[in-house]
């Protein structure tokens, strides 16, 4: 497929492959979440990539982005197949992994076994959770400890896009599957008919709680991700520090700020005045979060957040609380708005697991984020749009925010 380069005037200038990386992952998240159907209400130019195109695009991403995108897509598709028992995604997962499906039941069984056998510290026979799959998909990623970003003048120039040749290397879930099933890499088979879930499978699905929920009355979306980590505490403290959210594909800008003397605004905190990453700090953070609807349309928000980041090294606990101070604006549908979100609050906690199993996780984490998008319409101009149409983003929030949160927590799997 033709890949839109970043010379598109509608796209902000970003590192090579960033727009494609974000667009392909949003497609995976939207198509694997039933609530992603709300994207049908988006204008045609904002429609996400078809899932098959997104998977193809992932294999063509430049540099290390393929590895990262593969891990995220593997997690999302494997969760849909194994945790939510949704057979209609089996052929997409197989396509992503570059393996043949054969019997879907055998494929799922082999997939489950491959994950259970390769994750140390797992209890045999236990149903796989989202965290199990996330742990398996992300543990192979290179997660360097976050460092202070270089000043803009020291950043290297952006090289031209060079895409690797499809198919991908044998690693991660694909490698494990090939080992367990004795399969060889061949051209993926055509999609098979999705099978109807059996009653026990459906019952199992009902017991697995989704990680994101939306309150249809208040339209507040809550993403709640419990997870476990084997990482070193110091690394966790640096990774979870909100100042480490960016620069990254979804956070082009993210830095600590302080109020101006007259209290009317904020200015960046000088590097000499800021505390080290991974240590206590209380103040405000500017975040510029950005994502792609597809390869030729992006959207973004700019917010100021209140942050309370507490690191208790002797007790090996971390407590991070955040809330929205103000939203400075957003760009959606190629239009700038003076609003964007009006709820953005939550917390992230880390506590040690007492008597951890050998090779198993050492820390228990919980990440909770509540968010609500502002209504896009102020009804001051004609013609009037349909009832509730200004709240389309809130209906998509479980998917979009779920994607952001996965980007944050995937750094916690060592």
């Amino acid at each position, binding site marked *: 497929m033709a890949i839109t380069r970043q010379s598109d005037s509608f796209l902000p200038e970003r590192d090579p492959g960033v727009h494609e990386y974000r667009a392909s992952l949003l497609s995976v998240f939207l198509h694997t979440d039933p609530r992603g159907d709300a994207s049908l209400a988006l204008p045609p130019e904002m429609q996400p990539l078809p899932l098959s195109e997104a998977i193809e695009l992932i294999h063509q991403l430049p540099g290390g982005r393929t590895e990262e995108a593969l891990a995220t897509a593997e997690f999302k598709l494997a969760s849909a197949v194994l945790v939510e028992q949704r057979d209609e995604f089996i052929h997409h997962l197989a396509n992503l992994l570059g393996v043949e499906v054969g019997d879907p039941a055998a494929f799922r069984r082999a997939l489950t076994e491959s994950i259970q056998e390769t994750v140390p510290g797992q209890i045999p026979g236990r149903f796989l959770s989202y965290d199990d799959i996330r742990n398996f998909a992300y543990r192979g990623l290179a997660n360097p400890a976050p460092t202070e970003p270089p000043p803009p003048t020291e950043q290297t120039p952006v090289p031209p896009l060079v895409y690797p040749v499809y198919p991908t290397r044998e690693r991660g879930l694909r490698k494990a599957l090939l080992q367990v099933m004795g399969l060889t890499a061949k051209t993926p088979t055509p999609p098979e008919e999705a099978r109807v879930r059996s009653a026990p499978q459906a019952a199992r699905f009902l017991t697995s709680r989704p990680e994101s929920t939306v309150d249809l009355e208040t339209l*507040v979306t809550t993403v709640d991700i419990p997870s476990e980590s084997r990482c070193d505490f110091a690394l966790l403290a640096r990774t979870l520090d909100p100042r480490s959210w960016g620069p990254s594909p979804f956070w082009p800008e993210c830095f600590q700020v302080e109020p101006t003397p007259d209290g009317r605004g904020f200015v960046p905190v000088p590097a000499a005045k800021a505390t080290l990453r991974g240590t206590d700090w209380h103040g405000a953070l500017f975040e510029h979060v950005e994502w792609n609807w597809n390869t030729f349309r992006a959207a973004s928000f700019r917010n100021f957040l209140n942050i309370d980041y507490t690191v208790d090294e002797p007790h090996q606990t971390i407590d991070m609380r955040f809330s*929205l*101070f*103000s939203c400075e604006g957003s760009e959606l549908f190629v239009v700038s708005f003076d609003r964007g979100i009006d*709820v953005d609050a939550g917390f992230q906690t880390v506590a040690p697991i007492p008597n951890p199993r050998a090779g198993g996780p050492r820390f228990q984490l919980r990440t909770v984020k509540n968010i609500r998008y502002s209504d896009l319409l102020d009804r001051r101009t004609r013609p009037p749009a349909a009832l509730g149409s200004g709240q389309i983003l809130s209906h998509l929030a479980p998917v979009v925010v779920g994607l952001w949160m996965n980007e944050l927590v995937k750094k916690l799997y060592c």
Partner: protein
Amino acid sequence: MTTTTGDTSSAPSGTGTTTAVHRLDEFLKASTSFWQDQLGRWTGILQKVRAGTYDSTQWMQDTLGMVDAWIDLATVPFQLAAGRENPLPTLLFVVDGDAEFSPPGDAATNIFLPPGVTPEVSDLYRVGDDILAGGPPVSGSRTISSRAHVRARLSPEGDRVVVTLVDIGRGRSVREQKGIFPGLYAGAVFAREGSERRPLAIICALFEEPTLP
């Protein structure tokens, strides 16, 4: 979100002057400021020409400035013919129990402000409370700190006043820590020009009961 605060076109006014006198007075004031501007501009031009420092960029700025001034003067009769002055806007915010931030409310300013003037905001006072009473409030705080929770600014063109409510907090306990209790609050946005306080807008904010504890 903008409401008018009464029609001021009727005559005679409380001071006994007729509408005709009032309009003549307005026209004289407008033309006086116009001639003052022209005199100052031409004086500056002549001084720079004599000093040999008058360049094409300055000429362009002066030309555009004079065109602006002429247009302003030319529109005065139309403004007077409309028979009304701009009303003082009221910006009403309705904040539900979950919102941590209220998107901007904005309205055209009712007066023309010189560059460099920034709007100021009073604290928001809960309607129905006796703000002059001493001692602790009957239920919750009587005021919302404008410094902590209200932002007011002018649009880049200086013709609109823009107000947002920030850092409101979500949930009853969080809001109470910030001194925000359910109720209807009122406050004022004004511009300070020397010793003069020029009203720009009335702020009304209705805070609903939080849905979370």
